[in-house]
């Protein structure tokens, strides 16, 4: 015979580990070994091993659960008094914890419902918190970010100016004048076209001063950053690539450093590769030195630089702001022409650079998630309280035997803690799914602008917040019933002798308050979701002012140097349009400088003829350049006068078509045709030849912004979108559109090729997603609230079974009994709906201020929700009442 077979070592060690008592450990594993030997002799080693594994698993389960919940094997004879009761021998946290777990395991359905509810609510909170943390609270996490500030400057009446607003001359003066700020750095948008390798592509880039990388704490992985001597014109054909771009377009080839790549048609030497990490600012992939001529540095009228600086030692944002305000006040005195209304702002880097629009959204979302958690907690409190009543007898006995009230409270807390721990364990994978879903939900086109996107993953912050909220929720929902239980008069409970009677006044009050609160919060949440859905619908399908159907667009930016001559730009556009014009699928086509909903715009101060405006009175209007057929291609109506025509050439009289709101602002109630305006005191006059319909350029700024359209031929822009209205599917002309651009200039990439429907959808995609998630939360809340109302009313009805029996024995009709319960349901829902309506209206007001007027609080949806919730609550009240009424009175009286 071969060597004796041994049982699987791992299975055996697992089994032995699970048995606490050493004698049992030897006995059990020895028994199994003995049987294993017999088994392998009879059925062969393989079968025996399989058998052993099965037995070991079963026994391990049996012994490890008995360790946790030793209900099967009491260590002491039954007659020994419970140490809980005698007050002398020590009890342990462990025994209380075990007791609590046993209590939960004994009611799997209830515990399961509670855990699932809480896990869902916690996961929703964790997901949203991660989003808020990544995108809003801490979108930048490099070292020293807390000492960095953004300095911006703008005319006070120009709400459109953002942080990229500093004039070069101002910047230089600030660097010299400021003592509180050190290490100033400036950046200027520069999106160069990369060509020669594969397909040309427009990169996201910036021209920066050499100090920039030091300021943002970025170091190169290869090569170096910029040198001061590279900031002179001519010395600036050098670039640093982001790690992402290097991997994506150059395959991570280290020899690229020192070589030349072709940007905007000119060779640029690669001097460095950045470390992988956040791309600052705004997802930059390539950086070049900021090299202005002395003349360019003198520019004071217009500002476009993004300026960051580091706080000097011992300085705060407050002291820096005070100093900068003093400096700018001096500039206002010195340059009244340009700086009369100039204001300065100094903000922390995160505050200055994060996505400003994200705040209100994430706030609303987080509030909704917290509401959901509150509703879930109220629901759980109700469930536990209903159960607490069943256990009142148990508590009363223990109190009578000398257990302290706090001890009972502790036990309830332990049960709550177990629920919380299990819910948190379930919530974490759910939250991970949620965060991943959010990541995927963001349209790629907006990612460049989303700082902190790379931090969207489940991290310690999320774990911490989930645990914290879980603990808070536990405190809330487990203490409520405990307070109730300990308040119950001892003698009352005992005297009741386990017979069910009508619930005490205070308990009923608390239950009613909880259920009513749930109804109120749910109403608010559901109305909130309906409002958001409405807002999104308005943004996606509402009045755009143009027709997004059957339109293909291609966006591009011509590089500055090869297209320095406006005539070159005109020729480029003419070549592209000429090639496309004859195609059968093309109905009409035009070019516009800034495509609506694409996220960019440009504005100019307007000086209408015949009105002397002080600098403070000058207001901005959106500035567009368009070819004649643009209006036709977008189906923007020309309401008065004429549209732009081919006769509006470079050398002809400067003209413009203005939007209805433009005409109404400057010439209210008067014909605008023939009026003139200019965009600077010394600029040429522009004559209004037509009035067009208003369009929504960007739904984040939902106002119909006054806009003027100048003929492209008279003022050709580098940035443009080609707009093609097609007879069929717009995507069918995508290839032709790209080829037309390439034919006009082989080095010229198309930045984005999208149907107009896609452009709109991309812009509102994130919000769309938000709305759907909010609607889902509203749905969950509705379900929870209905469950809560139902369970409370059913519980109250069950508690009244005896009373109902008495009433029916004394001659009450079935309907009288049912009406009794329905009245109770009505009180609860009525209270909840009243409070909820107030909450919903308040929430609606808040949201309409956060969502720029897209949300309007209509009475109808609120009314519909009120009726729907009321009806469902009534049904929830009716069903258990009917059940009680259907009981035979004698049975009801006998019901324990």
């Amino acid at each position, binding site marked *: 015979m071969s060597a*004796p077979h*041994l*049982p699987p070592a791992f299975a055996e060690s697992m089994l032995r580990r699970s048995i606490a008592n050493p*004698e*049992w450990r*030897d*006995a*059990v*594993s*020895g*028994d*199994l*070994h*003995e*049987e294993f*030997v017999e088994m392998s002799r009879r059925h062969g080693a393989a079968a025996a091993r399989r058998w052993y594994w099965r*037995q070991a698993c*079963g*026994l391990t*389960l*049996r*012994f490890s659960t*008995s360790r946790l919940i030793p209900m*099967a*094997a*009491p*260590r*002491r*004879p*039954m*007659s020994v008094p419970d140490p809980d009761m005698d007050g002398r021998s020590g009890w342990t946290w462990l025994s209380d914890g075990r007791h609590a777990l046993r209590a939960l395991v004994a009611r799997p359905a209830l515990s399961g419902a509670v855990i699932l509810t809480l896990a869902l609510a916690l996961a929703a909170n964790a997901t949203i918190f991660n989003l808020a943390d990544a995108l809003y609270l801490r979108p930048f996490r490099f070292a020293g970010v807390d000492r960095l500030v953004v300095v911006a400057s703008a005319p006070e009446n120009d709400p459109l100016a953002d942080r990229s607003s500093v004039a070069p001359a101002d910047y230089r003066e600030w660097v010299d004048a400021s003592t509180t700020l050190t290490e100033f750095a400036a950046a200027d948008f520069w999106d160069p076209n990369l060509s020669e390798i594969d397909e040309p592509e427009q990169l996201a880039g910036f021209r920066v001063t050499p100090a920039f990388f030091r300021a943002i704490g970025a170091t190169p992985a290869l090569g170096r950053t910029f040198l001061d001597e590279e900031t002179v014109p001519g010395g600036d054909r050098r670039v640093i690539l982001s790690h992402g771009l290097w991997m994506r377009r150059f395959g991570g080839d280290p020899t690229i450093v020192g070589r030349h790549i072709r940007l905007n048609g000119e060779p640029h030497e690669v001097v460095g590769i950045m470390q992988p990490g956040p791309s600052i600012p705004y997802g930059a992939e390539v950086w070049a030195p900021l090299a202005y001529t002395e003349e360019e540095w003198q520019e004071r009228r217009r500002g476009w630089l993004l300026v960051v600086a580091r706080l000097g030692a011992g300085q705060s944002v407050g002291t820096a702001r005070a100093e900068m305000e003093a400096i700018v006040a001096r500039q206002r005195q010195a340059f009244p022409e340009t700086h009369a209304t100039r204001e300065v702002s100094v903000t922390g880097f995160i505050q200055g650079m994060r996505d400003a629009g994200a705040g209100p959204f994430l706030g609303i979302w987080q509030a909704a998630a917290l509401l959901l958690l509150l509703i879930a907690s109220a629901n759980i409190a109700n469930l536990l309280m209903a159960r607490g009543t069943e256990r009142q007898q148990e508590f009363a006995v223990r109190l009578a035997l000398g257990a302290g009230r706090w001890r009972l409270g502790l036990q309830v807390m332990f049960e709550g803690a177990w629920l919380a721990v299990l819910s948190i364990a379930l919530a974490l994978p759910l939250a991970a799914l949620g965060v991943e879903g959010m990541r995927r939900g963001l349209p790629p086109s907006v990612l460049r602008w989303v700082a902190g996107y790379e931090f969207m993953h489940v991290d310690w912050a999320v774990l911490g917040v989930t645990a914290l909220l879980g603990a808070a929720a536990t405190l809330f929902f487990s203490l409520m019933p405990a307070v109730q239980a300990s308040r119950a008069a001892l003698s009352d409970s005992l005297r009741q002798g386990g017979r069910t009677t009508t619930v005490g006044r205070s308990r009923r009050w608390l239950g009613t308050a909880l259920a009513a609160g749930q109804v109120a919060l749910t109403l608010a949440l559901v109305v909130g979701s309906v409002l958001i859905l409405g807002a999104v619908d308005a943004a996606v399908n509402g009045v755009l002012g143009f027709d997004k159907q059957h339109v293909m667009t291609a966006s591009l930016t011509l590089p500055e140097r090869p297209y320095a001559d406006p005539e070159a730009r005109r020729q480029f556009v003419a070549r592209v349009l000429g090639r496309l014009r004859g195609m059968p699928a093309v109905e009409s086509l035009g070019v516009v400088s800034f495509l609506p909903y694409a996220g960019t715009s440009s504005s100019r101060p307007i000086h209408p003829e015949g009105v002397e405006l002080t600098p403070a009175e000058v207001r901005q209007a959106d500035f567009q350049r368009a070819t004649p057929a643009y209006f036709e291609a977008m189906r923007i109506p020309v309401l008065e006068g004429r549209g732009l025509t081919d006769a509006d050439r470079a050398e002809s009289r400067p003209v413009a078509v203005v939007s209805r709101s433009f005409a109404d602002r400057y010439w209210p109630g008067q014909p605008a045709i023939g009026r003139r305006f200019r965009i600077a005191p010394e600029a040429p006059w522009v004559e209004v030849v037509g009035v067009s319909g208003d369009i929504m350029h960007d739904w984040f700024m939902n106002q119909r912004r006054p806009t003027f359209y100048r003929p492209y031929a008279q003022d050709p822009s580098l940035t443009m979108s080609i707009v093609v209205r097609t007879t069929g599917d717009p995507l069918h002309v995508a290839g032709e559109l790209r080829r037309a651009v390439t034919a006009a200039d082989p080095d010229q990439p198309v930045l984005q090729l999208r149907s107009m429907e896609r452009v709109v959808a991309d812009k509102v995609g994130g919000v769309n997603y938000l709305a759907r998630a909010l609607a889902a939360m509203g749905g969950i809340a509705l379900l929870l609230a209905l469950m809560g109302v139902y369970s409370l009313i059913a519980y109250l009805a069950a508690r009244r079974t005896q009373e109902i029996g008495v009433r029916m024995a004394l001659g009450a009709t079935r309907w009288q009994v049912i009406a009794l319960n329905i009245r109770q349901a009505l009180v609860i829902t009525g209270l909840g709906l009243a409070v909820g309506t107030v909450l919903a209206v308040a929430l609606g007001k808040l949201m309409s201020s956060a969502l720029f007027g897209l949300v309007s609080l209509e009475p109808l949806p609120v009314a519909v929700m009120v009726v729907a919730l009321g009806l469902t609550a009534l049904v929830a009240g009716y069903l258990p009442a009917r059940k009680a009424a259907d009981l035979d009175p004698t049975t009801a009286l006998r019901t324990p």
Partner: protein
Amino acid sequence: MPPKTPYLGEFEYAVLLAVVRLGDEAYAVPMRELIEDRTGRPVARGALYTALERLEAKGCLRSRMGDPTPERGGRARRYFSVTPLGLRALKSTHAAFASLTKGLEAVLEQP
């Protein structure tokens, strides 16, 4: 005052009987085989250990460890024997059943 005679469940009754029947050889492996053999029902090992542990805790059984043997991988057997309390429990349970079955022989012993 002697401790109160515990009440025996059906399975506990079977386990105690098996211990008495096996005498010096009363450890888990033959016990399980015996009960399975006589009752014709499968007996889970976990259930048997639970019952043994509980009976010992109630004071119906006592146990001693035997010598380690090689066919058990060097582990000792745990032998059980019935305590006087266990015997009383067995007797009273048996008596209860006996009094219940008394006079029913005609029904119970029909083939």
